[in-house]
Each structure stands twice: as structure tokens, then as C-alpha cells.
């Protein structure tokens, strides 16, 4: 089975590498999606059990849309893996702040090469449309410091593919490197553009340090760009994001249109990117999925697909997840417009009702 899976993996990697960034034809996506489902039905016992219980076997499935959805919460309760672990297999863990019996979800990635292949093209299009490589300055810890972080793995893989060099300014415990000032002095004197990467919260912390401690940011050379990820999605801090972008842009001396948001999650190997560097603020502030990642907005109660532009719960079919499960139901809310995702942030100041936050506290207090 492993060799069968590896044939599929190689075919997918070839497809990813050959992809121009244009959407795949429905026929091509469908063919690959059903091949992936067959492999997952064979390899992933929990998925097979669910399919059998619902009578949704590979013979009976004519479209990827009919493959049972796996909620991200299930990654906390079950090992969802569809192929034997390769020598460089990874298990990425979620941060443990969402509800579930286990505090942290786990995403098995038996073949990280598929992850790397899925990362390269869309990242280049979003962050490096004008050049082949660039110096990275990262406020995300290095992958060897946090081996179970999918985000650190992603930055490490991106650096392998595109970095002229990487400076890691934050360690696994979130401490700033004592080399930060030295790194920025070098960046400024070189005059060469850099790619600054970080989470929203890392940028907030960096900005809050200003004036209180030694600065950990600097005015960046012209042509530099920023990759920002996570932190504000669904957290009620959309206003925070707007303000943070303005403050960050002011501090590093670049227009806000040089800040690119990446939307991804531990449970998906593919990403969605804003395309502001190419498309500008108007169009580029929605998220473009990788061509092998199909996304739908579903009615939150009936799970029926919603028409274009209507907000619902986001569901993905990610071919790069071939090694685990591909049809993933998230808790994120957004709308699909012209093939792109418009993420919804909770209304500013809104407080979720009931115990949805409290239940996390309860489970973490119970040490689960």
C-alpha cells in the first residue's frame, strides 16, 4: 500500500510543481480527489469506519463533495493518518486552545515532501512575484526548536526553497534573540530587501516593546515585504489587525500593501494567501487558495453549500493532505467570492455567549 501511496504522492507533487497557479480544471481536480479518497479509505481506519457506517464507499462516491467531512475537532480525538510513516514523517500539533478531549490536536504528515511541494508555488506567487530568493528575518521560531509546529515547519521549508539566508529572532519560548539589533543593523546597512515573517501576536509584541526595551524592528530597505499569519482570525480583534498593520507599516517604513496575510491551519498542508503584492489592496485582501485546495462555504446548521458571497462555515478538500484526511470541516466563517475566501472576523467587541470559551478553560484545568 505504501508504494501505491507513494505513486499517488509523486503524481500529486508533479502536479503541484507543474501548476501555473491557475485553477485546475474540475475534471483534473475530481480525478485526483477521488484517487486521494480511495487511498484514504484504504489507509485511514477511522475514515473508513465512518464511510462504511454511512454507506459512502469509494465505489459509491462520484464527487469529492460526497466524501464525508472530517471536523478539525476530530484531530484531537483520533489519529487520522492514511499512509505508513516515512523516514521524515512529522506530527504537527495544534496550540491546544480549542475545545476537545485532548488539549491539542495532532495532524500526521507521513510524507512532508508533499507539504513542501504544496507550499512552494503559492508562496512564491504571494510573497516573491518579483524575485527568486530573498533574505528571511523570522519572528517565528526555527523548525528544529519547535518540531511539532506546522508554522515553523512551513517557514523552514520556505527558507530552504527561497531564502538567501535566515535570521531567527525569536526562540521556542518566545524570547527575543540578543542578536536582533545586530541583525537589523546589518539589514539596514546592506540595503537589500528582506522578507519579514511573523504571527500577528509576535508583531503586536514587537510593537509594544518600542520605547520600553531595545527595539526588535527596524525600517526595512525598499522592496522588503512582510508575511503575517494567524492571531486575529475569529478572535474578535479585527480592529486590532487594522491598527496593527498601520502601526507596523509605520514602524518598518513600508506601505501596508507590502504586508501579506497567510491563512492556514495545522490540519491543512495547503495554504491560502492574500495577493496584495500583485493585485493591490482592493482585490488582494481576500485569500486565494492553492489550485489543489477546494473551499466551500456551508450553511452552519444544515451543511448545505451556500451561494457565492454568502457567509458560512468553511470546508476544504486539500489534495496535499493525502497522507491524512482531505475533506476537512473548520470552525472558520467566511464567504467565497470569485474563487477567493473572504474571512469573517467576529464583530468588534462582541462577546461569545455561553460557555464556549469557558469549556476550554475547564478542559485545560482538568489537564486533558
Amino acid at each position, binding site marked *: 500500500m505504501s508504494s501505491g501511496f507513494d505513486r499517488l504522492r509523486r503524481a500529486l507533487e508533479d502536479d503541484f510543481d507543474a501548476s501555473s497557479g491557475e485553477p485546475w480544471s474540475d475534471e483534473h481536480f475530481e480525478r485526483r480527489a477521488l484517487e486521494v479518497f480511495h487511498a484514504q479509505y484504504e489507509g485511514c481506519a477511522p475514515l473508513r469506519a465512518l464511510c462504511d*457506517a454511512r454507506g459512502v464507499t469509494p465505489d459509491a462516491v462520484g464527487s469529492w463533495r460526497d466524501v464525508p467531512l*472530517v471536523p478539525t475537532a476530530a484531530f484531537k480525538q483520533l489519529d487520522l493518518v492514511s499512509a505508513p510513516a516515512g523516514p521524515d514523517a512529522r506530527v504537527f500539533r495544534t496550540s491546544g486552545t480549542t475545545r476537545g478531549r485532548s488539549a491539542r490536536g495532532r495532524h500526521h504528515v507521513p510524507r512532508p515532501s508533499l507539504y513542501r511541494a504544496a507550499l512552494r508555488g503559492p508562496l512564491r506567487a504571494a510573497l516573491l512575484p518579483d524575485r527568486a530568493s530573498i533574505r528571511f528575518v523570522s519572528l517565528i521560531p526555527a523548525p528544529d526548536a519547535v518540531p511539532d509546529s506546522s508554522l515553523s515547519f512551513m517557514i523552514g521549508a520556505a527558507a530552504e526553497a527561497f531564502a538567501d539566508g535566515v535570521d531567527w529572532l525569536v526562540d521556542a519560548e518566545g524570547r527575543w534573540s540578543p542578536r536582533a539589533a545586530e541583525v537589523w543593523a546589518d539589514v539596514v546597512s546592506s540595503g537589500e530587501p528582506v522578507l519579514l515573517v511573523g504571527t500577528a501576536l509576535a508583531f503586536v509584541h514587537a510593537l509594544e516593546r518600542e520605547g520600553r526595551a531595545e527595539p526588535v524592528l527596524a525600517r526595512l530597505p525598499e522592496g522588503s515585504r512582510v508575511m503575517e499569519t494567524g492571531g486575529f482570525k475569529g478572535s474578535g480583534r479585527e480592529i486590532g489587525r487594522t491598527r496593527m498593520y498601520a502601526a507596523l507599516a509605520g514602524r518598518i517604513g513600508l506601505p501596508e500593501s507590502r504586508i501579506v496575510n497567510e491563512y492556514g491551519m495545522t490540519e491543512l498542508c495547503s495554504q491560502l494567501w492574500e495577493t496584495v503584492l500583485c493585485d493591490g489592496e482592493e482585490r488582494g485582501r481576500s485569500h486565494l487558495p492553492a489550485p489543489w485546495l477546494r473551499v466551500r462555504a456551508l450553511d452552519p446548521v444544515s451543511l448545505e453549500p451556500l451561494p457565492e458571497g454568502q*457567509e458560512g462555515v468553511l470546508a476544504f478538500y486539500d489534495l496535499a493532505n493525502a497522507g491524512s484526511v482531505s475533506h476537512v470541516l473548520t470552525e472558520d466563517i467566511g464567504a467565497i467570492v470569485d474563487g477567493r475566501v473572504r474571512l469573517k472576523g467576529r464583530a468588534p467587541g462582541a462577546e461569545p455567549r455561553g460557555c464556549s470559551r469557558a469549556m476550554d478553560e475547564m478542559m485545560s484545568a482538568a489537564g486533558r
Partner: protein
Amino acid sequence: MSRDEGSGIVTGDGTAAPTEGPTAAGVRAVCDRLARAAPGLRARSWREIADVLGAVGERFLDPGDALRAEALDALPEEAGYSPAMAERVLDGMARDWTADRIHAMVAAEFEAPACLDGPCLVGGRRLLAVGPTLCLQIVAGSVPGVGVSALVRSLVLKAPTLLKPGLGDVSLPELYARGLSAIDPELAGALVVLYWPGEAAELRDEALAAAEVAVVYGGDTTVRAVRAAAPATTRVVAYHHRVGLAVIGRDALGAGLEAVARELSLAVATFDQRGCVCPHSVYVEGGLEEATRLADALGRALERLESELPSGPLASEEGAALQQLRGSAELVAATRGGSVRHGGGKPWTVIVEPEDEGVGPPTLARGVRVQPVDDPRDVAHRVASVGRHLQTVAHAGLGSRVEAVASALARVGASRIVPLARTSFPPPWWLHDGRGPLRELVRWAEVDPG
């Protein structure tokens, strides 16, 4: 009574509220004004105060009263309930706001209630029970009516009260303040209802500094933050996040199964699982077969209840969370055993889990987990890991084993063990999270006349 739309302040005494939105200085001014109301309050007897409070409370039960009509008009949207559920919740909560119930609460709490009015002999000592000079009530908002119950507790102890309501429970305390000002301006002057957003820490801190006692209802994060911010001289009475569960013995699974399922469905549905009394997990004596039988009956009862007491509308985020619950439960059931039944477009969800699945996180929106248990006395051991968050345990069909099961559960954290039919609305004198609702607020003074 005046209400300044911009400030979110409702006062009882007709003085002008600040014209700007709530500020730390505004909170300080409110606290100063409340302090000035204290002498008038202390000059009155608790019985007189209870009668006035009860007269306002009774208006919420009177079908012809405009205050009740306004409350029923505001509640569905504010609390996210269907109109039928809003009425059930108002009836259940306001039942405890009458003069009779407030008198009964005081009588249940104090061996000699006269000690609230002056020193009197209690257990061989002369004691005076003194309410806080200022009581700050920070209310969560997940269950409407809790705010009014909270302010009744402190006002009857003659404590000027600043109530910070939570979203979802703003209208009832505001309407109550208005009702109070209509019949007793002096007493109304001792009450201010003032909303500020949870993140406005400087307003909270100003109020905490002024209060002798701060009562906080909320999630653990909120409670932790209030405790950390309170001065050493402000006593914090905290009601942190709690959940309920149910234990169903074999005797309830026979001919009476449908009736038990009906009562259980009401306990699950009332407050749409947002109350600390709501059972999130049900332990059924027997094996998977018995658990499944109860789950089937419960599913039918919850489905029927959707026409009688419809669920409130779900926000997208709540719907998304419900789908996570259902979808992951189905996957786990297919893999490890158990089953899931739900209402499709209606949010009720009943999940049967095998015995060894462990205690699950609380559910939402009329979701409930059902697990078999060989011996109901083992439930305490099963839930011990979440014992500090346990509150109400509902029981049925346990026969003579009730006390043994209850004692074991009390020892791991439960504070209220009641028959299924009494789950949703405890009486006003209930030992709230194990402590007396009024005794928790007073300071005792020992008086030795020499």
C-alpha cells in the same frame, strides 16, 4: 430614574447620569453616589426592603404588567432565546423575586434574621450581620435573570449595589431598576446598573477599589482577572464556570422511561445548555444498550420540545461549533463504538459514548453526551478530574442509593444533587456553588455590651 443612552448607565434616583460613555471617573462618581445612599438604606428594616424588592419582582410575573411585557419583548433577541424559552426562563427566575421568596431566603440563611437590623443573640453571642458598604456585582450574562437575583441578594442586606451586567442579561436589571424607582426612589438610589465591555479593565478596577465585596459570575478567565485586580481590602466572591450532569438509575429505564426522557430534555433545553445547572453528560446505569435506549427516548423528547420550546437561533460560530461536536462524535462512534442522533437543522444532539471514553468537554446548543456506567456510585470517580467545575447533579431511578451516589459526587465537587424535575430552577436560598447566597456577602460584628 434616568437613562443616558450614551453612558449605558441606569440609575434609580433620578439624578443625571454622566453624558459621556462610561469612564473611570464616571464609575468613581457612581460609587460615591451609591455610598451616599447607604445611610438611608441602613435606617430601614430588612423586612421593609424585602417587601419593596418583592413588589417590583412580582411585576415580572404579572401577565398584565407592562414591565413583564417589556422584558418578554427584549429577552429573545438579547439572550438568543426563542420567545417560548424566554417566557419559561423569566417565569422560573422571577418566581424567586417575590416578597415571600425573599423573606424565605433570609429566614433560611440567618438563624436570627433580626441580626440584619441590629445586634441580637445568635448562638450565645450578640451579633450584627452587616451588608457590604458597597457591593459590586459583575454578572456573566449567559443566563438572563441572574443579574436581578444578584442585586436582590445584596440590596436585602442593605448594601448599595453597582451591577455590571453581562451581554445577554442587561434588560432585566435595567427594567428592575426602573420598577424600583417607580415605587421607592430612596431604595432605587442605592442601585446602579452600568454596562461596560469586559476589556475595560480601568472601569472594573475603579469599581473594585470602591467595593467592600465584589461578586463575580463568569468564566475562569474573568474570575482570575477580577481576583488579580481586587485590592486586598475588597473581598471577592466568585462563581466560576460550572456544569451539571445527570445520573439515571436502572429503575428509571422501565415503564417510566419516556417521562424521565421528557424531564431530562427539559433540563437540557432550558437555557439552551448555557446554565451552570444544565446537564452536559448523562450517566446511565447499565451498558451501551441501556444508554442507547435512554438516548433514543431523549432524542425523541428533544425533537418534540422543538415545537413547544424551540431552540434559539444559532450564530454562525455556534453552528460551526455544533458541527464540530456532531462530526467528531460520529467519527469517534464509528471507530470506537457508540452512536449519534441529532435534529439536523434543529440543534439538539445526543451522543452515546462507550464507558471508557472518559469525561468529555461540555456541549452546547442542546447537545448532551450519554455514557453507560456499571454502578452509579462510580460516576464520582469518573468525573473527579472536572470536579472543581461541577455544580448540579440531577438524578432519577436511583432508589435508596441516592444518598450514597450524592455523597460521593459531593466529595469530588458537586454542590447540588436534585431530582431531575427540579434541575433548572433552584430556589433563592440554594447553596450557590456550596455557599449561602446571603451569608457569603455579610460581615459579622461581635457586640459585647460589657
